[in-house]
């Protein structure tokens, strides 16, 4: 049945529609929980699950239908007022949505629902369905729950008249009416009915097609720009009029096509009520989520890009921002915390705010922590405003939560959020008032494909600078330049409103020109473009500032992609290509060059050295082994840090494992691992024996909690058990003793102490190999 093309298409449509329905369903369910009397929400939930059930019955997905059916039956009783919604029911219904979603993705991937056993879920739902309604249900007393064989009672609940709970209810008719109707005829009729409601005036279009259209419109805009230039120079009247019309049409077309790719941000937000509910329940908190401006529209690619960062921040806000009910009461606040999501347009950008009314960020503690971690010095901390200190949370390796939880707070989070937002040309900012709450504010561009940019000229080349990183433009008159531009040990600075602005010369950075004699340069006016890169400002000195223009961003070929100074290229009105500067890349480059220049004068050596310097600065996780040895692991390789209870460790196939996120996580012990390789691999079997014995000689009495560093190796996770996690530092690593030991790169001085740098890749590879060898040994 699934083989023909037509069927495939039906399944595809079913999938898309069902995913959408599920998203809405989750949202409505959470709404319903807070407003149990909202009959409209209930009706729409019912309708959605009914549609899913109907269509999958029609397509022959029996398991899916079964699950949807019991969910629907419960909902129908809720709708008819026979039952009252309880939190348990909401949870069960959300679980139903999860189960359906999993089956859908399985159908998408493999064409079937996958190996699942949803008996338990079905039993729970059925039990709830027959629970007495008006008074809170008392599940353990119900005989149905465990006793009734499943196959009998589930699909056809209406044929169990002996059920006592059911007899107690007054309205038998309406309930069975529905259940009966769903049995056979309806599935065919309903998908059609469901669809016709909303989709009469809309069609689904492949995103790829829209992308292509967008590209073509981009071309058209460029061609128009070129034609306009020609017509202006020719001055032919008829041509001018036509050109003008073309201009208008192209502009409107561009807007229209852009609109087709726009989606309301509410599409992403639909998932959040569920997330907030889950996280809050998990942390024992009460949190209400409110949303403003869910209709604010953004380009689809941007929506995709901000989805995960937003999710992370929402989880963070619930986990860390909002206090526990007791603490809130003590602080004189309502027990229920409030999380507000706001989105609105402003100045060609979209602003998104996530604010909570929690405890706020403790700036003093944050600074103290940053000093302890060596991220800033004590003097720097003193000079920091509260606003600046709050933004420290974006530093990799900082988390203020005292208690690190499952949900968030490993300090490998907010920095990633920021990187992701900046990647799409947005900015993130945090403000916080102690005791009142925290607000994270993001500015996101509307679209990625066409961006406003400033065009500058330097050394006869034209470059585009994305407007998002532009702060202001300065022009120093000829003659003024020599006195206004000062030097600090060879690097140029300018006093901008009392603060030193480091200057970067674009032509020199791009190596386009032999170093200009600064005396000769002093006779010309100096144009400075003040730019923002990360949290730093710098002035870019260019020959000429031309104009701002809407440019179409085009990717660079792979031969050039590796140069981080360029973000892409664009085609200018005259048909020539101009490079788009990557402000962050440029800033990094300029920064490093400044350091290297002092070290060596030779151009070529300079280049190699810079490469090295870039690589050498790394963020490291410091750990300590039982015997006090310090070791470091590059943070970039680490997926997560976890803590497991000692008794969570199980054994499988001669190896220690723990259950982790629904998978089995093999554990390696670092001390043994290194030990056995240091003594040569002949000792392997012995080492393995020690492992089997107890916790081994690693730590004698092992602590209750195991600190585990989780690495991701392809599709698999591997956990490395370490004795203690010390710190996260960013340091320049100079390997002093390249090691011959396997598993260790060598030693370096980190925080004034000798530290071994672990060779994680080697370690993981060995772990893989060992698994194979181990399997052979046991036989």
């Amino acid at each position: 049945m699934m083989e023909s093309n037509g069927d495939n298409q039906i399944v595809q449509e079913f999938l898309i529609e069902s995913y959408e329905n599920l998203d809405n369903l989750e949202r409505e369910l959470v709404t319903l929980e807070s407003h149990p009397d909202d009959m409209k929400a209930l009706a729409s939930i019912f309708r959605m699950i009914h549609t899913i059930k109907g269509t999958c019955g029609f397509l022959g997905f029996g398991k899916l239908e079964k699950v949807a059916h019991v969910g629907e039956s419960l909902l129908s009783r809720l709708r008819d007022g026979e039952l009252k919604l309880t939190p348990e029911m909401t949870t069960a219904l959300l679980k139903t949505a999860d189960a359906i979603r999993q089956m859908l993705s399985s159908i998408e991937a493999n064409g079937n629902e996958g190996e699942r056993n949803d008996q338990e879920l079905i039993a729970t739902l059925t039990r709830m369905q027959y629970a007495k309604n008006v008074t809170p249900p008392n599940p353990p007393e119900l005989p149905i729950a465990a006793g009734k064989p499943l196959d009998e009672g589930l699909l056809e609940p209406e044929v169990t008249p002996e059920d006592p709970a059911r007899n107690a209810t007054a309205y038998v008719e309406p309930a069975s009416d529905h259940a009966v109707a769903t049995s056979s005829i309806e599935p065919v009729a309903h998908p059609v009915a469901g669809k016709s409601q909303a989709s009469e005036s809309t069609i689904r279009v492949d995103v790829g097609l829209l992308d292509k259209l967008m590209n073509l419109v981009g071309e058209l805009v460029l061609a128009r720009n070129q034609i306009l230039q020609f017509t202006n120079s020719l001055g032919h009247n008829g041509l001018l009029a036509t050109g003008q019309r073309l201009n208008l049409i192209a502009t409107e077309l561009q807007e229209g096509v852009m609109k087709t790719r726009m989606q309301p941000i509410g599409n992403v937000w639909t998932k959040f009520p569920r997330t907030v509910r889950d996280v809050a329940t998990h942390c024992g908190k009460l949190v209400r989520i409110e949303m403003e401006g869910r209709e604010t529209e953004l380009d689809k690619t941007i929506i995709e890009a901000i989805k995960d960062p937003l999710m992370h921040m929402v989880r963070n806000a619930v986990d860390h921002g909002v206090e526990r009910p007791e603490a809130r009461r003590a602080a004189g606040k309502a027990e229920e915390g409030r999380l507000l999501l706001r989105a609105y347009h402003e100045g060609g950008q979209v602003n998104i705010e996530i604010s909570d009314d929690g405890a706020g960020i403790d700036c003093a503690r944050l600074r103290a922590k940053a000093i302890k971690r060596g991220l800033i010095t004590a003097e720097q901390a003193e000079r920091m405003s509260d606003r600046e200190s709050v933004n420290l949370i974006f530093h990799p390796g900082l988390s203020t939560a005292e208690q690190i939880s499952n949900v968030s707070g490993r300090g490998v989070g907010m920095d990633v959020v920021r990187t992701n937002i900046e990647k799409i040309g947005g900015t993130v900012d945090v403000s916080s008032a102690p005791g009142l709450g925290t607000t994270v504010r993001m500015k996101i561009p509307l679209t990625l494909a066409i961006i406003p940019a400033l065009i500058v000229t330097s050394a006869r080349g034209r470059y585009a600078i994305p407007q998002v990183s532009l702060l202001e433009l300065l022009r120093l008159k000829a003659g003024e330049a020599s006195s206004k531009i000062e030097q600090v040990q060879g690097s140029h600075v300018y006093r901008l409103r009392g603060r030193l602005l480091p200057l970067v010369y674009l032509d020199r950075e791009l190596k386009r020109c032999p170093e200009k004699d600064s005396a000769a340069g002093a006779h010309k006016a100096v144009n400075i473009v003040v730019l923002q890169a990360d949290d730093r400002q710098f002035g870019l000195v260019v020959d000429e500032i031309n104009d701002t223009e809407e440019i179409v961003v085009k990717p660079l070929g792979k031969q050039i992609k590796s140069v981080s100074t360029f973000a892409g290229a664009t085609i200018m009105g005259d048909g020539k290509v101009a490079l788009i500067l990557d402000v962050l890349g440029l800033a990094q480059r300029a920064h490093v060059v400044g350091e290297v220049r002092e070290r060596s004068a030779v151009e070529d050596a300079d280049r190699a050295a810079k490469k090295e310097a870039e690589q050498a600065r790394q963020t490291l996780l410091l750990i300590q082994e039982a015997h006090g040895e310090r070791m470091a692991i590059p943070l970039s390789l680490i997926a997560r840090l976890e803590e497991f209870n000692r008794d969570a460790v199980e054994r499988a196939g001669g190896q220690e494992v723990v259950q982790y996120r629904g998978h089995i996580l093999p554990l390696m012990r670092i001390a043994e691992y290194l030990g056995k390789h240091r003594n040569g691999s002949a000792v392997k079997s012995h080492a393995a024996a020690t492992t089997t014995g107890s916790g081994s000689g690693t730590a004698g009495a092992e602590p209750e909690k195991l600190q585990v560093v989780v690495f991701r190796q392809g599709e698999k996770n591997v956990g490395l058990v370490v004795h203690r996690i010390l710190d996260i530092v960013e340091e320049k690593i100079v390997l002093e003793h390249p090691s011959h030991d396997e598993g260790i790169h060598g030693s370096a001085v980190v925080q004034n102490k000798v530290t071994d740098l672990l060779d994680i890749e080697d370690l993981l590879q060995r772990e893989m190999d060992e698994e194979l060898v181990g399997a052979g040994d046991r036989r």
Partner: protein
Amino acid sequence: MSAQTKQFCTFFLEGHYFGVPVQQVQEVLRYQEMTEVPLVSSVVRGLINLRGQIITAVDLRRQLGMTDRPEKQKPMNVIMRTADGAFSLLVDEIGDVIEVEDNTFEPPPDTLQGMAKGMLRGVHKLPNRLLLILDSERTAKLSDAEA
């Protein structure tokens, strides 16, 4: 029609006769204005605008370690199609599309040294001259030595 044949798009570089499989060639263009790209390998001569698509132009003379063509001589573009998008090979002059028999093919001579060796797939012995067949995958890659 006895022997198997292949078609090659041919061009000249410093008097040598080169060919690439015709299926890999998207089009051939006369000189196009280029935008120089700072900070990259000198093999990359610049970017050209091919009907709105931005294409990297690789100077084959430099890629093969030959001397630069005289200033006045404008290079021609052979636009190559690859899985990672198109790129342009800058050559001196364009030749014909020719059909050659497979049995005239020989791997590159062992005595061939330097960069050219890695980039040559082999040689077709034509009646009056040799046709050097380029490995277009390799030419698309920039050697690190050059960067």
